[in-house]
């Protein structure tokens, strides 16, 4: 039983690590702000949840589990909201997506 939990938590941790790595590579490599926010926003939520779930599996019952669930809830709430706020603020400030810029310049 404990071995199964260990393996599950290891899988969760490793998948989470892979996802954040891919997310940050997207943030580094993508050409403009909106694609970057896409890379960061999408991977961040799932990766953070996976890592926290992996930790929960290690933690077992108790106050620690409760706090981890609390952190997970907060991250699930705040991370998409922050991404939304960023995207909206960037759009309002007049930042256009990569492809659109050229079109407008030519007009």
């Amino acid at each position, binding site marked *: 039983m404990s071995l199964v939990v260990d393996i599950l*938590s290891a899988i969760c941790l490793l998948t989470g690590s892979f996802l954040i790595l891919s997310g*940050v590579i997207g*943030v580094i490599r993508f050409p403009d702000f909106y694609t970057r*926010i896409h890379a960061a926003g999408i991977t961040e939520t799932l990766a953070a949840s996976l890592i926290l779930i992996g930790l929960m599996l290690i933690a077992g019952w108790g106050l620690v589990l409760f706090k981890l669930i609390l*952190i997970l809830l907060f991250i699930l709430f705040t991370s998409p909201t922050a991404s939304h706020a*960023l995207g909206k603020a*960037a759009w309002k400030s007049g*930042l256009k997506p990569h492809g659109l810029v050229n079109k407008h310049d030519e007009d």
Partner: protein
Amino acid sequence: MNNMFLIVTTITLLVVMALALIRAFAGPTVFDRVLAGNLFGTKVVLLIAVMGFLTGRPDFLDVALTYALINFISVIGILRFVEITRKSSPKEQS
């Protein structure tokens, strides 16, 4: 056995934080920098949680929780102030 995976996760998190810092320095617009800062912040939350388990005292998740909250507040606040600064000095807007 479990520790090994925790260490792997920690190292990945550190690498990711370094890469996010690169974007924060390079980012052409202020929003790129805020995005990288947000990314850095969530990674710090995860890092504190993982480190708590790694050092064997997972009671200290309070710090991670605080960081998650405050990180959100400061990202939102920074965006608000970017907006305010842009609107309070209209002549600089090009």
